[in-house]
Structures are given as C-alpha cells and as structure tokens.
C-alpha cells in the first residue's frame, strides 16, 4: 500500500541525491572554469562520452559492471550499521584468487566450468577478506572502517608481490603480470554488444542483494541488529554471526567484481586490477543510500563519468585525472546532503488530526 508517508519519503530519497549531483556538477563547472575550460563544453563532453552514442554507452556499461558489485561491499554492511571501505582490497583478492583458480583448471575443463570455478574462487577470497574485518570487529572491537581501509593496502601489496614473483609470466616485461587464461575461457560478450557478461552478474547480484535484505529472515535480522543492537539482543539474534556473515557477503560481491575484471577484461592479473573501481564503489553505495537496486542505476551514471576521462584530456586539454576531481566533489556533496534528510517540510507527512487518547477506553 502506497500511503502518503511512503511517497514523500521515496521522493525525498530520490530528490536529495539528485540535487546533490547537480550541485556537484555546478562546483565542478567552477573548477573547470578556473582551469581554463568552458564548463558547458565540459558538461557536453562528459555527456557525449558517457551516454552520447550507443558506442559510448557500451563503454559506460563495461565500467558500470564492476561498480555495481563493489558498491555492495559498502551497501550491505551499512544495513548493519557498519561503514566498510575495503572494496578495493576485496576486488583485488577476488581477482588474484580467480586467476589462480582459473589457471589451475584451464585446459582440462570446458570454458563454462573454468568460469564457474573462477567465480567461486573470487567470491570466497573476497568474502574471507572482508569476513576478517567483520570478525575483528566482533571479537576484538577493531574499527571496521580503518581495518578495511588498511587491508586494501595489504591486498594491493600481495597482488604486486604475486605478479612480480611467484605468479609472474616471464613474457610480461614492462608490466609484470600473471599468466593469462586462454581466450576461449574468457567471459564472453552479451550478444550484439561489446559489453561482457559481467554486467549481467552485476545486475543479478544487486537484485539478489535487494531481496536478501528486504525479503528474507536474514535481512530482517541484519536490519534489526543495524537499527538497534539492544533490541536485536533482546530478541536473541546472533549479532556476531550476522556481522561476520554480512561482511562475508559484502566481500564476496567485490571479489566477484575482481573475477569479472580478470575473466572478461584483462585476462590476467596485474596492476590494472587496482583501477579504483573499489573506491568508486564506495561512492556509488553512498549516492544510492545503500539500496542495492539504486546502486545498479547509480553505477551506470558513475561509470559514464569515469568513461569520459580520456575525452576531457583529448578534447579540452584537461588532465584525465579531472574526472577524479569530479568524483571527489560528488562524494563530498553527497555526504553533506545526508545531513539534509528531514529538514524540508515538503517531504514531511502532514500532522494527523489528533484523536482522543486511547488509554481512556483501555481501563480493564
């Protein structure tokens, strides 16, 4: 039933992030003007590069796929009241595990089996990686934001160590990499497009995550514990197990993103794996207010902005890092906009006419 309270709340949840995005576009325009470029030319270039043509839009979708998955690494724990930003690390660990598993079965199994094995390896590795963060949080009260952030650096160091040493393909000279998986085993493209199946993974996983949180007993328990730990304890819910389980699931989504990057884009593990999809995923989760369905839409939007980096460089002479300035501005403005919820009368339910207190009829 759609009551007035509901549509007002939904409208608020949609309007505020959109207003935040528009305001950050404005700020970015000021920045570009200061850098000597015409802001409107910049907006036009971003739009053209992101959504201007079918070719450009496919580029956007290719970038959106890992973003959808990594955003869940922040969005799921947020429902339990945890702020986890270890997306990049989980993605990297998932990528390493996927390539290792893929290489060990490639050639002796059909392509589909190789892909499934890679996906499972990525999911497990990413899940365990963030699961550790959850366990540290529950058993030792270690701050999950800091530990997950620091574990990113560990993951990246492990990646560099492995592709530069034990897993190195001797033919990879100027960019140390692992051995590649055979082209036949790579994740293919969706028919009639250049977009790989990773996009489908992203959309499906986002939908599953939404159902998991909103429609299952597990999600109910997690939302209860996230909303009020004391109430969860009084209902006997296992808060510690929930923490570790939701962290595992969060990490496994980012790990799957690592698998997609390896299996569909690079074909091997190397430093390209750590291409900031993890960090951008945090941004996606916050703009989407930790709603997995909204995250899949926001990921496409942000994927488009990321895709426009090289155009800004080529056409307007701005450094390609300019898009990261935009990304940073969006993040700041969106975080600020969190403080605006409940501030606007238009989104508030009108006061119900007051009825006589029911206690008068309650005496037994």
């Amino acid at each position: 039933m759609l009551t007035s309270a509901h549509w007002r709340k939904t409208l608020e949840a949609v309007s505020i992030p959109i207003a935040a995005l528009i305001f950050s576009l404005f700020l970015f325009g000021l920045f570009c003007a200061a850098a000597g470029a015409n802001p409107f030319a910049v907006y036009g270039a971003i739009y053209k590069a992101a959504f201007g043509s079918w070719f450009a839009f496919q580029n956007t979708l290719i970038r959106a796929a890992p973003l959808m998955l990594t955003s869940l690494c922040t969005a799921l724990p947020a429902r339990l009241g945890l702020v986890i930003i270890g997306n990049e690390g989980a993605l990297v660990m998932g990528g390493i595990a996927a390539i290792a598993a893929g290489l060990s079965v490639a050639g002796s199994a059909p392509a589909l089996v190789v892909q499934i094995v890679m996906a499972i390896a990525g999911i497990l590795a990413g899940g365990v990686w963030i699961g550790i963060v959850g366990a540290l949080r529950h058993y030792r009260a270690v701050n999950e934001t800091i530990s997950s952030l620091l574990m990113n650096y560990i993951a990246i160091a492990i990646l560099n160590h492995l592709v530069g040493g034990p897993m190195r393909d001797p033919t990879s000279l100027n960019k140390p990499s692992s051995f590649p998986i055979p082209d036949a085993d790579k994740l293919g493209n969706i028919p009639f497009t250049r977009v790989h199946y990773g996009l489908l993974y992203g959309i499906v996983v986002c939908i599953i995550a939404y159902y998991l949180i909103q429609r299952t007993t597990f999600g109910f328990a997690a939302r209860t514990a996230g909303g009020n730990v004391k109430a969860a304890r009084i209902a006997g819910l296992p808060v510690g197990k929930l923490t570790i389980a939701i962290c595992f699931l969060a990490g496994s989504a980012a790990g799957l993103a690592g698998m997609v990057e390896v299996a569909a884009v690079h074909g091997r593990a190397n430093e390209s794996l750590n291409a900031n999809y993890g960090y951008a995923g945090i941004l996606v989760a916050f703009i989407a207010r930790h709603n997995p369905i909204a995250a899949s839409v926001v990921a496409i939007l942000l994927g488009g902005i990321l895709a426009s980096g090289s155009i800004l460089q080529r056409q307007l002479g701005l450094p390609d890092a300019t898009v990261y300035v935009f990304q940073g501005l969006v993040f700041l403005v969106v975080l600020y906009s969190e403080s605006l919820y409940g501030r606007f009368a238009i989104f508030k339910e009108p006061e119900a006419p007051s009825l006589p207190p029911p206690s008068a009829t309650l005496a037994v």
Partner: protein
Amino acid sequence: MNPAVEISQTKELDLPPELEVVNMTKQFGQLIALDQVSLTLKPGTFHALLGENGAGKSTLVKCVMGFYQPTSGEVRFNQQVQTIASPRDAQRHGIGMVYQHFTSVPAMTVAENLVLCRYESAALIDWKAEYEVLNAFMETAPFKLPLSAIVAQLAAGEKQKLEILKQLYLKSKILILDEPTSVLTPGEADEVLGLIRQEVVAGHLSVLLISHKFREVTAFVDEITVLRKGKFAGSGSVKDLTIADMAEMMMGEKRDPQKVEKTVHPDPTPVLQIQEIHANKDNGLEAISGVNLTVNSGEIVGIAGISGNGQRELVEVLAGQRIATAGQVLVNGEVYRASRREMFKHRVFVLPEEPLKNACVPQMSVAENLALRTFDRSPQAKGWMLLFKPIREAAQRLIKIFKIKTPSPETPVSNLSGGNVQRTVLARELSSDHINLLIAANPCFGLDFAAVDYIHSEILETRNRGVAVLLVSEDLDELLKLSDRILVISEGKFAYESPIATADFAAIGRSMAGH
C-alpha cells in the same frame, strides 16, 4: 590582581552565604515535579537532600543552579532574593555543582582542566603564571592532585576529587553534590566525603548532598530535607533522627498492599534459577556481586531497589543484553544463555525499561517491530523468505487488541508516542499464549493511570496462568501490589527477602537505603 591571594583571603574572611529555597514549584506541562518545597542551607553545614527516584531532588537543584526556571517560588542568599537565570549566574553567587558523572576532559592534565573550567578564560594562556596560581591553590586545597597528571590516568576517586577541586578553584562557597559517590568504591566515597566534611566544619563551605545512602548521611551530614513525590516530606537534624524515621519520611506511611485476585498454584516448579551471577557496569566496576534467586511457576517475584544498585544490569543479563562475568542462569533446569533458540524453547519474554531504546528498532515499522520474535518461523516466514501478508495481518490484529495508536502498520515505531511504543512492546511480549517466564523492568514507567492498571492486570493474568514473573521496579507500591515475594537489591546484592504477607515495610526501606 593575584588570584592566589584572593582565594586564600576569601577563605579566611567570610562564611558561605545562607541559601534559602522558598515555596518552590516547578511544573512540566501537566506534571508537577516540585510542589511548594522550601529548604534552608545554613552557612557551614552539611545538608542532605533525600528521596526516592522521582521525588524531585534533581528538579530542585536544577532550579537552584539555573538550569530550570521555577514556575513559582524564590531563591534567597542571606535573605536577599536573587534570580538565577543560568548556571553562570549560579557560579557568580558562589554555587557550584558536582555531577554524578565526570565532566573533565580525559586527555588533558589536571592543570589544563582546572584552567578550562573558568567561564572567562583569556584567549592566550600564560602557563607560567597559571602554574604559580595553581600551585598556591593546591597548597591550600583539602586534597592534593598532581597538576601535571593526565586525567585519564587518575582513579575514579581522584577524578571525583578533581571535580570538587574545580568548584573550590572557582571559589564556590556552596557545593551541590549529586550522588557523588555512585561511581566510587565505599572506601573512596568515605575519603572524599570525609575531606569535604573537614572543609565544612572549618566554615569554608556549605554542602547540599543528594543521596540515597543512609550510611553516608549518618556518617557525614548535619541536617536533612526529605522530598516525596515532589513534596516536602520532612526535615531535621541527623542527630535527632533514627534511620527508621528517615526511611519513613522517604517512603511515607506504611501502605497495605492493594488486594488483587490471585489464584494459588498447587505445585510450583522452579522456572528461573539465578546462580551466583556477577556482572559489571558499563564502566567495568562490578554491578552485581553474586546473586541467587529462584522464581517458581505461578509466582511474581518483585525486586525493589533504588536505581543504580545493579537491577538494570541483572535484567540485561537475563534479557541477553549483557554478559555475566560469572555464575549461570537456568531456565526449566537447563542452562540459559539467552540465544534465540533458547528463548523460543523456554518461552522467555522480556518487558524492558525504556522500550524504544531497549526493545524496538526505531526506524523499522510497527509491523516489523511486532514481528521481532516471530519473523523467522511459520506463518510469518517460509524457509528464508519473509511472508509479508501474515506479518501485516498479525500486526493489524495486535494493533487492534492492544489499542496501539498508529497511522498504519507501516509507520516507523519511532513516530509513535511513548505510551504507544510501550503498547507495541507489550503486544509483542504478552500476546503469545504460551509464555513460561516473563521478565519485566519498570513496565509502567511514565504511563498514565489507566495504562498502568491495564499493564498490572495483564501481568497478574499472566501469573494466574502459571507463568513465572520476575518484576524489577522502582515503584514500591507496584511491587507490594503485584508480588508474591519481595526482595531488595542494594549495591549488587539481595539485602532483604520476604513473602509479601509478612513483608516489613520499614525493613524494606532500610535495606533499599543500604543499611
């Protein structure tokens, strides 16, 4: 001007002013928290303000300190009427307050905290000059603390001393102490109060002590004023009063338990057994030190006590919100750790105090909050999937039966009024027709008369069905009315136990006050 000289001069020169509170009334909406109360704090005396929870003690001192403006009545210093508009005004008149909880900055030193507490600090601090002043001040202070010590590293007793030193440093002549010993061990409490007593005897200070503890009152205090339910209930000199007199002033006349319908159960079986439970407060000090208790089927066991004596922690242990440091809880003879499976198996339900904080998820809907105990089993769930229709139907049924006033089952429970939040929790915990053990803590706190009656009849009805009920309450009338057996908890231990028929009212009062 040299502040150090000034401090020593004022100390030698004059006694603290006489503080009079005359016919003070404070109303919050419909509620009269303080009704025509008068009190005189003579210069150089140690005066205690006694009363049960909610008697109006805090309201009175908050009016004196300028946190609240009284509805009527006045404050006089040496017969001069003064208006105290803010705590800063109170400080100007030489009144300082020490709160139950520490207000120092843990990461800073004693010296920094002392300088910080001045209202008018210069933008630049000349530490050399400040240290000279502080050293001179410490020379004359009743207790010494190392100025360069970090506050976080001080023991609780020393932190409390720092709070008092701050007031002396601010040259307060009248000290209001709000249960200053609740965070201290008895040894620390005696030391701090003893040293303050010396200052009072020397004529440097007047003290108004808010306390529940007769032990401290008889050892350190000259005069008392007692409040009961917002009204003046008596005053006098401690040396003329017995503890029984003071207890009677606090509790009022002996009240006969209100008669209620109770059915007798032929063969009671032990349902809840608490064995040697120990548990800590949030700050790590021990709150419960080894309590034993059995609650039988068809019996209401009441636990009386002044808040802060361990009853909250005991309820939290039983509700699964706090881990006991030692001992065990048995339900139906089996070890009980408050897991969801055990709660369901043994049918344990809890009505905690402050339901919005303890038993509800504020941003989740009324329907979801009502489903908190049942969402994961049939008919509200099928395997892993939540079934929204049965959840909604169950909510609509409970909203109707328990008359919860809510715009819809989907409204977040935090949008409801306090009484309706309480009803929501009551509906969830009492609607099950096979309760085995009910743990209730101050279930009627803040509710109107009709709602209280309703909750009492629900609890009694539950008991008459054979449910074992543990009722923890700060309202003695409620306990006397409902309980079959009454215990008093004081400083983490049971200090009194009696069947309700033979309960001695005066002895309950004395045990509650820790004597």
